[in-house]
């Protein structure tokens, strides 16, 4: 099938979209910047979960573990060691990745449904364990010290440059960081999936037996994806909780906020495609705005919508659209080698 878009078009589109999003804080109100920050973070989580479940076949329902670990590491870095929150975010990603190793040692022994439940139990153990950390408030949690975000690296320059208050400057800075994290995750996912490793991963997903026969090691590849997504998810957790400024074990390890919503976003948009989570997050945002006045009705509609997608459009909105029209943004396919050049006498 011929690609409807030449290769440079999606790139141009992505650059344009990123540029527009980057300019939002310059023109939009502060509430909008805060809202969009939340949405961008949700997108980071969705892109990571999509890599896990959509490409590596690892259906985890315990990714809130890494959000919480990233967030708690950031808090520990600020409160106990007096580090800059942004250094704390980076540390959060690294600690999440390090703790993903023992988690993987446990859950990789389990298959399918057992794997899913195993990840959930691991997240609960992390939640209950961190609830015992009295220096960070134990079960009732704690807040970032006053002025932490005001003194954060880069807030001063943003404040001077745009002539806004410290609070607004920190919102803007966090927003840009979230946008940067989205773009980095997207670029890294695309590069990874187009690489030799990514090809191996998709080969395992399509036919594990055949992939092993040509020398692809499924466990090593899946473990690599598990660790890398733990890093991305941990970074996102740290970033999220700088803006929230208050942490409790229940909020940091929320199954609903950091995994269930993410699952809906990815599946509704189209699992196993790169643009899918983006479509899903846009729809999620639209639904939230539309139904925000109706309280719990919003969640009921979201649940029903997810069920309907599974019944009638299994590949999600983006998957169905691209399946019908042949439209591909961020295509992952490779051109087959030219037989004339491959065969040498």
């Amino acid at each position, binding site marked *: 099938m011929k690609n409807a878009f030449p290769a440079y078009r999606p790139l141009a589109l992505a650059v344009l979209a990123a540029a527009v999003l980057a300019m939002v804080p310059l023109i939009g109100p502060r509430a909008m910047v805060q809202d969009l920050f939340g949405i961008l973070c949700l997108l980071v989580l969705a892109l990571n979960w999509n890599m896990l*479940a959509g490409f590596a076949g690892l*259906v985890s*329902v315990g990714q809130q573990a890494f959000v919480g670990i990233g967030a708690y590491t950031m808090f520990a870095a600020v409160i106990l060691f007096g580090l800059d929150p942004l250094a704390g975010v980076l540390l959060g990603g690294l600690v999440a990745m390090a703790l993903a190793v023992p988690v993987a040692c*446990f859950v990789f*022994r*389990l*298959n*399918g*449904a*057992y794997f*899913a*439940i*195993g990840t*959930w*139990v*691991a997240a*609960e*153990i992390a939640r*209950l*364990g961190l*609830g*015992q950390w009295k220096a960070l408030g134990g*079960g009732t949690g704690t807040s970032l010290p006053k002025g932490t975000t005001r003194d954060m690296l880069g807030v001063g320059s943003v404040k001077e440059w745009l002539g806004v208050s410290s609070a607004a400057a920190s919102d803007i800075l966090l927003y840009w960081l979230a946008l940067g994290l989205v773009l980095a995750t997207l670029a890294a996912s695309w590069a990874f999936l187009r690489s030799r490793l990514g090809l191996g991963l998709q080969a395992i997903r399509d036919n594990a037996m055949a992939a092993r026969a040509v020398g692809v090691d499924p466990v090593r590849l899946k473990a690599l994806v598990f660790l890398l997504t733990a890093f991305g998810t941990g970074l996102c957790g740290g970033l999220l909780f700088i803006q929230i400024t208050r942490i409790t074990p229940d909020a940091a390890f929320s*199954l*609903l906020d950091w995994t*269930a919503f993410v*699952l*809906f976003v990815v*599946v509704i948009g189209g*699992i196993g495609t790169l643009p899918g989570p983006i479509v899903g997050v846009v729809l999620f945002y639209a639904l939230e705005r539309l139904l925000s006045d109706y*309280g*719990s*009705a919003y*969640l*009921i509609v*979201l*649940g*029903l*919508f*997810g*069920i309907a997608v*599974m*019944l009638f459009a*299994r590949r999600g909105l983006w998957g169905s659209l691209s399946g019908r029209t042949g439209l591909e943004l961020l295509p992952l396919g490779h051109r087959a080698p030219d037989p004339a050049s491959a065969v040498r006498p």
Partner: protein
Amino acid sequence: MFSLDTIVQGLLLGGLYALFAAGLSLVFGIMRLVNLAHGDLIVLGAYLILGLGTATGMSPFAAALIAMPLMFALGWLLQTRLLNRVLGEDILPPLLVTSGLSVVIQNGLLAAFTADSRKLAAGPVEAASVAVGPVQMGVMPAMTLATAVAVILGLNLLFYRTALGRAFRATSDDAVTAQLMGIRPQRIFAMATGIALVVAAIAALYLGTRANFDPSIGPARLLYAFEAVIIGGLGSLWGTLAGGVVIGLAQTMGAAINPEWQILAGHVAFVLILMVRPRGLFPRAID
């Protein structure tokens, strides 16, 4: 190190968890369906019993008897209209559908009954206790464990002594070959989910009389139930009872050391057992 009392309380708590898990074990064993809404369906059952009780003034035990056929019908409908369409090799579609269902049930109950916690009033039996040797045993917890054993016994008789049970086992082992023998898996699945929800109604009775409940408590109960099923081994109902008892014992022992460690101890026990035996203690079927 642990008093006899702690161990008895753990056993009794294990009975409750086994009741939560029995229906799940049946469904999981027969069709490998991960029903993330099972905990919320138990909570739904508790509200059903509460509603029937308030409407007619009868005791929760009588109301549960009426709730059981209603829950069976709900399970049958759920399976034939919804879950049968998403079952397959891929575990994600049923996972997503049942998690959507979980969100819908939780928020539906929230809208209908508010977030206030409720309780089923069972009368004087709630506070009654008997002395068994040196240990004081609550009558309700003892009834819970006895009911759990009876339910597992009943399900096992159904599973190994009846034509329906043979069909259950055949479908669990190999659905395609079972079909060649004239079994319709879709009907078998609907029966299984119906029966699972009857057990859920029984579990709801004991959940509601034991402690307060509100619309949000389903998922935590679901996790204990899943742990019991997995510790017990896929397709083994006695294993599920053993799994429930393991979680119950671990939780009361953890709580005896430090009250904050109760839930954590249950999860840690789960991880330790799975590290040694990744397929659980008594697996009957192969995943």
